[in-house]
């Protein structure tokens, strides 16, 4: 229990520091890396012909999609011809068409759902040129979108910021330096970083063991820093080479928590910017606290559920003092596993340090619910944008109850925005539930289910929640490398990512163009405790109304069954 608390306490100063840095990078203020990086950025702008011109919201979103489209196209081709390219010491074959489609969408949308296994499915060149490349670019895309969104909320015009500039700055100034540092720490803990091929050794019992090597650490760091989550190896961060020690486990967790939290801090500073200097702006703080409350509720639930263990194993008469250890690693135990599970689904990274399919039913419900809400910090950038939808919705509902004009940061909230917000909040559950319904109604869908009973439905729900929330973890038992699963989850990831970003930026553009009104006595305060509690309540209520029926048929039924 203590080890969880200590990690969370270390996180707080780090996130505030990162938030201030992020704010400076976004607002183009001076940072101490400038002397070197200004030259690097300048060179990149020159090569690409990028000029420092401001874009409207519409132009911003179009260039975002355009550049993502080029990356998808070239990445797809690379996967299809990887066997004839360089750096393929383990002689990996080309990737099949639907699997390549799924993989490329998965990495471009920052989801990192993996229907392949890294050791046997990708050459080292693909790991670097497709996977690591996309981990950087998809994270930078999400972050750029988020900052464009936040800037518009506090601006008086819709023409500001340039996608390419934001995109380049976040890679060179934030992602690249942090990833380098984290990668070296991970190597020191025992993550391999080599370009030589896998090794076969003779054991002391005279048998053979294959050892999978590769440039693991460099992928591992950006995987967490960019909240991507796709592993070098099939079993992701459970494997000792991706996550060798408890120290590496903590570093990986902090890496994935750092930037999503920093986004909220940076936003708080943008709001407070108009007034005075502060460490953590009040508006952002109220949102941060709301997210933290949801996070802690989930964390405690997983911890207790996993610590209690599986009653069926207890019945066998062996000692389950350590908790439910099926699918977990001995070096992490319950505390580090429970924390990792909550973090990876709240911050929508999707890497796993234990196998979520084997979690106890209630322990598995929490990660699923985190992804269904998709607002508990969330992936870099987009999580904050999702939460802002709920913030505005909460303001709207609260103002209706007390008969005031809804207003947020000086901008009136009217019919057009509310329609888009309602649409935005509904897309995510619609994708999850409709695709799940399709999967259980078709034989090709059901064929993927590997656990009998209620847990089978959980596997399906989890897969689509993970795809639509752009998380990427899985109830890995699901036999998902089939045309049906590759295509449906590919579409779920695609819509979950781009539809949401388009609508959210449209809302921001609408708000940016509005007149600014000063606060009066009649304005609902959105930066106090009452509002925070109301926000948490609205998030939970909408989440429960949407997903409780499905959850009751899946994990809750399974829980009742194993205890009966």
């Amino acid at each position, binding site marked *: 229990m203590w080890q969880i608390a200590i990690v969370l306490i270390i996180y707080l100063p780090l996130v505030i520091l990162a938030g201030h840095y992020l704010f400076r990078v976004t607002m183009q203020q001076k940072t101490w890396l400038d002397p070197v990086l200004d030259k690097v950025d300048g060179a990149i702008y020159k090569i690409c012909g990028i000029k420092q011109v401001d874009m409207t919201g519409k132009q911003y979103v179009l260039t975002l999609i355009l550049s993502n489209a080029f990356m998808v196209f070239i990445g797809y081709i690379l996967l299809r011809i990887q066997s004839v390219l360089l750096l393929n010491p383990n002689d990996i074959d080309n990737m099949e068409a639907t699997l390549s489609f799924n993989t490329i969408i998965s990495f471009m949308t920052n989801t990192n759902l993996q229907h392949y296994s890294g050791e046997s499915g990708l050459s080292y060149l693909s790991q670097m040129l497709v996977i690591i490349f996309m981990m950087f670019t998809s994270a930078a895309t999400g972050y750029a979108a988020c900052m464009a969104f936040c800037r518009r909320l506090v601006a008086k015009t819709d023409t500001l910021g340039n996608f390419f500039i934001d*995109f380049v700055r976040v*890679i060179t100034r934030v992602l690249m330096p942090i990833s380098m540092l984290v990668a070296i720490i991970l190597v020191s803990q025992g993550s391999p970083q*080599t370009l030589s091929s896998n090794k076969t050794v003779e054991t002391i019992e005279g048998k053979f063991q294959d050892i999978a090597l590769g440039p693991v650490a460099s992928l591992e760091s950006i995987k967490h820093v960019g909240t991507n989550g796709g592993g070098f190896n099939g079993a992701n961060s459970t494997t000792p080479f991706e996550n060798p020690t408890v120290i590496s486990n903590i570093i990986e967790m902090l890496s994935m928590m750092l930037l999503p939290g920093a986004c909220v801090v940076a936003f708080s500073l943008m709001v407070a910017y108009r007034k005075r200097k502060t460490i953590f702006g009040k508006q952002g703080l109220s949102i941060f606290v709301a997210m933290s409350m949801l996070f802690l509720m989930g964390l405690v639930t997983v911890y207790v559920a996993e610590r209690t263990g599986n009653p069926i194993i207890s019945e066998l008469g062996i000692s389950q003092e350590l908790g439910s250890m*099926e699918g977990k690693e001995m070096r992490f135990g319950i505390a580090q596993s429970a924390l990792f599970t909550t973090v990876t689904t709240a911050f929508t990274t999707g890497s796993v340090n234990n*196998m979520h399919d084997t979690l106890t039913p209630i322990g598995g419900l929490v990660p699923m619910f985190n992804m269904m809400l998709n607002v508990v910090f969330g992936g870099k950038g987009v999580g904050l944008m999702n939460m802002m939808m709920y913030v505005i919705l909460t303001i709207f509902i609260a103002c209706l109850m007390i008969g005031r004009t809804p207003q947020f940061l000086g901008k009136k909230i009217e019919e057009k925005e509310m329609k888009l917000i309602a649409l935005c909040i509904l897309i995510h559950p619609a994708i999850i539930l409709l695709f799940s319904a399709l999967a259980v109604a078709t034989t090709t869908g059901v064929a993927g289910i590997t656990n009998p009973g209620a847990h089978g439905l959980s596997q399906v729900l989890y897969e689509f929640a993970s795809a639509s929330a752009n998380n990427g973890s899985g109830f890995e038992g699901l036999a998902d490398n089939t045309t049906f699963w590759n295509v449906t989850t590919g579409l779920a990831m695609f819509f979950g990512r781009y539809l949401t970003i388009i609508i959210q930026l449209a809302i921001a553009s609408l708000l940016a163009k509005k007149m600014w009104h000063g606060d009066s006595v009649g304005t609902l305060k959105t930066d106090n405790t009452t509002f925070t509690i109301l926000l948490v309540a609205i998030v939970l209520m909408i989440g429960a109304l949407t997903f409780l029926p499905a959850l009751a048929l899946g994990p809750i039924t399974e829980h009742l069954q194993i205890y009966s």
Partner: protein
Amino acid sequence: MHKFIENSKQALMITFTMFVLCGLFYPFAVTGIAQGLFYHQANGSLVEIDSKVVGSEKLGQAFTSPEYFWGRVSSINYNVYTEEDTIPNENGETAYSGISSGTFNYAPSNPELKKRMELDITAFLQANSTVKREDIPADLLTASGSGLDPHISVKAAEIQIERIARASGLSLEEIGEIVKANTESRDLGVFGEDKVNFLKANVDLYKKMTQND
């Protein structure tokens, strides 16, 4: 339209620039630094006996002989195989299907989980006749997430000492010392769990046995 073409050009160029920066420069730079600073770890933390590599201290292995510590259940048998495992049967399938990682992914409610554990408990009790059922810690008979876990709990190591002593001819004290030497306590006294690296312990057992011969 002109604007669109210009933007496309920039988008294409930025894609290529990032291929070079993120996809090539970054991993190569990290590889260079890692190989320079942490040569042992960067190449897989390999364990050698008489300059022959026998495994990696980070990865467990499947041990079946009674004179060695047994690890946790692995769905991939720790990527360990014999010559026969690679010879295809009449259907063209091999017992070892190539390098991988993972677990059985049995849900807590899956009857297969109970069946597997029951079989393993019986087998374990047969091989360790002095051990009582309620003394078996669950980590030993549950599958690890990666299938490569190099650790078992301290208790899981202790209950195997008697069997190992009988099979190897080493004394209980000698084996107890090996367990102690390979026990990794919680980092800074708080983080993680107390555990025994059974691969390293087995390497020590091997060395001791060959020494005595």
